[in-house]
């Protein structure tokens, strides 16, 4: 975002406030959810989903990723690719395709 005229900044600020509110709500929600007893798997799934939503809000609005330049999108795509490969490590380390592991 190169030039910021005061007008579109006001728009920004409004969206910041909305995100602020929703983050607060979601935080309370995760904590609340963690207290009611669902199965571990469900709890983990739920917790991660909420966290991901929160993270996306921060990334999209606070970090202005909703309208960013192509180059940066490309960089992030490459990074995420590598990131997911990295997440295979625990699988290969212990969930194991290891003989006798």
């Amino acid at each position, binding site marked *: 975002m190169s030039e910021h005229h005061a007008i579109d900044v006001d728009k920004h600020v409004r969206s910041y406030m909305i995100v602020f509110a929703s983050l607060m709500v979601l935080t309370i929600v995760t904590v609340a959810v963690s207290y009611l007893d669902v199965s571990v798997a469900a709890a983990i799934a739920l917790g991660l989903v909420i966290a991901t939503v929160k993270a996306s809000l921060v990334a999209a609005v606070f970090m202005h990723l909703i309208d960013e330049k192509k*180059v940066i999108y490309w960089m992030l795509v*490459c*990074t995420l*690719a*590598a990131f997911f*490969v*990295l997440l295979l*490590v*625990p699988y*290969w*380390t*212990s969930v*194991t*395709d*290891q*003989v*006798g*592991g």
Partner: protein
Amino acid sequence: MAEPVRGKDEEHEHQHELGFWRKYVFSTDHKVIGVQYTITGLCFLFLGFSLMMLMRWQLAYPDQPIPLIGKLLGQARAPGGIMTGDFYNELGAMHGTIMVFLGVVPLAVGGFGNFVLPLQIGAPDMAFPRLNMASYWFLFLGGMTMLASFFAPGGAAASGWTSYAPLSDIAMNGQTWWLVGMVFLITSSLLGAINFITTTLQLRAKGLSYMRLPFFVWSQLVTAFLLLLAFPPLETAAVLQLMDRLAGTSFFLPSGLVVGGEVLQVSGGGSPLLWQHLFWFLAHPEVYVLILPALGIVAEIIANTTRKPLWGYRAMVYSLIFLGFMSFIVWAHHMFITGMGTVMSSFFQTTTMIISIPSVVILTALILSLWGGSIRFNAPMLFALAFLPMFGIGGLTGLPLGLAAADIPLHDTYYVIGHFHYVVAPGTLFALMAGVYYWYPKVTGRMMSERLARIHFWPSLLFMNCIFFPMLIQGLNGVSRRLADGGVTYDFAGDVIGLNKMMSFSAWGLAVAQIPFVVNFFWSLRNGEKASANPWQATTIEWQAPSPPPHGNFAAPQVAYRGPYEYSVPGHEVDYLPQSQPPAAATT
């Protein structure tokens, strides 16, 4: 005039003169920093080589006192001048670490990348000069930490450059120094990578579109991405191992370890394989970091000395990018023997075979580029040409290793050592030498001596092969690597152990063969024949700047009108057409 180089020398003499410090020591000029990197890299190459020459004595004459310097090593390392197993392991680990992280990377990326890349894209400097300086000084810190570790109680790290846990977890303090040193080196590389990528994305001369970039720039760009994305996981691994060593955690330690008859008192629950995965997640991309800049240098030189465009430039660029991506999903081919099931091993064998194809494409393109050329056998070209078959041997010997079943007898034998030394020593090192001969006039304004270069080249080529080819044979015979006695303990390899003497003498011969290079390097600073701005009649933009280039590099902003290698253009009387020469002038 080689001020930067002189500057660096004087720095060692601790000269105190403000202007000088800012200009040559804490400089933010990419050219000075490039030279600092180059000198540092060469010195560490030399150091790593020296460590190896010590080891080669032990390999040739196990448990015989080392002549001359044996006594100087001290009782702890070499009682009565005879090298201990521990000291051998220290040397081995540090040779690997120094060569990879403090020798080749600083030279190939920090040195050539810093000096040449901005010039080739017509930029006044790197995008972040201060970051650039910081990156060098982090490297320096890391290097010093590694050196200091030799004097740590118990000596330097001795668990191999791979530092496999648990051995490294329970090793002496040297290992902690190693980890701290690595954190510095990683930080240095990350800062460097950020700088290279930003510079290439942002500061390219007008008209210098991606498909007009010299192949060297492409190789540096891909390399930078590899460093940027592959190094952080090793940084994490280093932090975890530091925690294991200093805070008593058990990230890499399973429960119920018994060391020297004592049950190890740790919480346990960790996994030794985690370290290997995190390490190789970096270290495989790292090996391409060692080769890609070399390929870039060789491509520049081949285009220039064959006086024709690179054959299949686009294919080479796409292969390069593909190579970059693939190198993130082959790492476990270093771990076949850790007990993988069929699914996992099949996956990594397949990716490993796939990744060899782009290398074949690039190398083939380089060889085909020779066809129809008008080849000048000057110093840079000799080394660049030798690179091709040498990398060929190294690369091809990677194939049996990549096939898990064939890797069973070959893993952790000298076959592996032979494989990668063919790629890094007569491969990468030769390419780097070629680069030194090629860009020396740009850096110093003087040419290096062709005669001395030839005296340097032929023996080096001979000795390199006399060291590394026998390794392949020993490996096929099953001789394990990292044996402090070269394998004499075992009968099964009896008949190939004899080769060790010849290999060791070749290694020492190789050292002698470097003398003409060192002499040439320093002698030419003052006495080499003066070089014009463009002594090789090259097309790429760095040759449009004066030699040596002033601060800010170019008098006027550069504009690129055509591809990087417009040599022998039909209908153009001189056989080269610089990238930045306006078309109007071109037709006259």
